Every structure is written in structure tokens, then in C-alpha cells.
């Protein structure tokens, strides 16, 4: 681990613990993460007993070299983007801990758990009301979006 930057050292530690003790339904694609520590792909299963039971999703994490002081860029990728009031059809997620409420004590694991729980508390599968407009006009990087966090129920 010598010669690594502080962000790489922390990511290496997180990767080890995620491989060793993954939360239920969450697994990290080790091939991709080991090639480039700043780019991870996480496989995620919808929790049992929720609207997303049996579905599989892919999450992409992109880290800057300021991680963990700077939040990771987290989007859903692949052909199954969950239909959820806070997930846009291009994979962008409206979740406060990914921007304003980020803290360096959070981790990939805690972000994954937050997203699983966000999906699990969903009552009705639908896209955000402004999905069409947002997807057409937004920046590629969801962190450039000024999000409004107004709905804490889902």
C-alpha cells in the first residue's frame, strides 16, 4: 500500500471490507475496481418484500482524488434503472447524502445501504414528475445538478 494517495488508501480499505463483509444483496465488481480504484461498479438486488424484489441493478461510483472529502458521483447504469420517484431514467439519483449532506464518515457501503433503503420504502413505482425535462437538459454529472431535497418520505 506504499505510495498510494490518501484517497486510494481509504478506497483500498473500503474495497477490502466490502469484499469481506458485503451487506445483504450488495456485491462489488472486483475486476473493475481493481483496475481503477477511482471507478467501481456495484451489483445490487432489490430487497425481499419490497416493490423491487427479484430485480437486479448496477450502480456506478466515480471518486475524485479529494475523496472522502468530496462525495462520490453515484448513478445507476445498465439496462435496468429502477423506476422510483427519486431516480431519473438516465440513472441520476436525487439523494441528499450524495451532495449537500455528504460526510467523509460515510462510505460506499453506507451509500449502498441508503439507496437500498430508499428503494425499499417506495410505495408506488413511478418516475420523478420532471423526468422528461431533466433527462433532456441535465449535465452528464449529477453532482452539477442543484437538487431540491423536499420529500423525505421515500
Amino acid at each position, binding site marked *: *500500500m506504499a505510495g498510494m494517495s490518501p484517497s486510494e488508501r481509504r478506497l483500498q*480499505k473500503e474495497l477490502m471490507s466490502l469484499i469481506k463483509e458485503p451487506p445483504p444483496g450488495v456485491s462489488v465488481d472486483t475486476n473493475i475496481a481493481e483496475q481503477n480504484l477511482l471507478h467501481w461498479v456495484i451489483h445490487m438486488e432489490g430487497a425481499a418484500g419490497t416493490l423491487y424484489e427479484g430485480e437486479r441493478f448496477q450502480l456506478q461510483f466515480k471518486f475524485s482524488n479529494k475523496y472522502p472529502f468530496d462525495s462520490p458521483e453515484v448513478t445507476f447504469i445498465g439496462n435496468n434503472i429502477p423506476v422510483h420517484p427519486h431516480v431519473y431514467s*438516465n440513472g441520476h439519483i436525487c439523494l441528499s447524502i450524495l451532495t449537500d449532506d455528504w*460526510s467523509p464518515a460515510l462510505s460506499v457501503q453506507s451509500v449502498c445501504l441508503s439507496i437500498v433503503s430508499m428503494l425499499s420504502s417506495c410505495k408506488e413505482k413511478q418516475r420523478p414528475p420532471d423526468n*422528461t425535462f431533466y433527462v*433532456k437538459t441535465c449535465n452528464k454529472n449529477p453532482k452539477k445538478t442543484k437538487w431540491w431535497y423536499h420529500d423525505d418520505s421515500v
Partner: protein
Amino acid sequence: MASSANEDVKGSTGDEGHNSETKDEEKKDDSIFECNICLDTARDAVVSLCGHLFCWPCLHQWLETRPNRQVCPVCKAAISKEKVVPLYGRGSTKQEDPREKVPPRPAGQRTEPEPGTSFPGFGFGDNSFHMSFGIGAFPFGFFTSTFNFGDPRPAAAAHGTHQHMEEQFLSKIFLWLAILFLTWLLMA
């Protein structure tokens, strides 16, 4: 750091019975004293009044990241340089306050404070307006959608779906806006 990674591996294989047990115990003890930011054993340790442990260099960097909203990374309690307590173990040679060790960063490297989050989007002047509604500042929306090089446009929605109707409606509105704008340009 290579040594600690090796220890992890040894601990998990657990082929040496008692030996690996003590290793695990040691590891548990260590993790109590891990910095909440870098996840290494805290060096130049400081503890917040809310009881959370950090390396001073790590916490200092976090406090500098958001100078106008200094909160504990773990519990979001308000903290500041004055409200953290340096820890001195018996083994530490110099009884020097770690908070004095990190010099304030040069002004040029300071990050700008984040814009206030109390009423996002209510001022026309701040550029959050166009991100939320997309109609606040015409040229910027145009730039973001037009100059996303290498970013494939999302495929059109299938016929008959709700999304397709919405898209048709939107494109009609934009067409009329463009015509109105052009006529206004010609008239002026």
C-alpha cells in the same frame, strides 16, 4: 501499510487457531482507535466534544472543505477547531498540541464555501435557477444540452406511452418558442 493489509488476510484465513483469535482481538482493539475519515489508526488524534475520533490532519481538511458549515462527519453536531480535544497517550514523546501542527493552508488553495441551501432557486441571479427549472436562463440550458460531447442523447420513448406524449408536447413548445424568438429578432 502493507503490513496491516497482510494481517487482515491472515486474520481471515484463521488457520492457526488460538493465534488467529488473538490477532482478531488485536484488530478489534485497533479499529476502536481508527480515524473516522481515513480509516487508519488515528495519528495526532483529536476527539470532538460529541466523542468522535479523528486524525487532526483529516479533520482539519474537512473543516477547511466547508468553512461555513463545520459539522462532525459522524453525527453532524457543530464542531470547530476550539471544540476538539487533543489526545496524548503515554507513548507520545512530544506533548505538543496536534492542532498547532497543521499550518493554515495558503489562501489560494482554500475552497469556496458552498452556496447557501436555505432557499435554493429563489433568486434569479444564482445559477441554481436554471438547473432546477431549465427555463430560468435560456442560454445555459442550451449549452448544457448541446455541448455534452460524447454523451449520447437518450433514445426517444416508444409510441403511445405517456413519456412519448410528454416529449411531443415539449418539442412543440420549444418549436413555438424558437419561432417567436426568431420573429422577435426580425421585428426588432
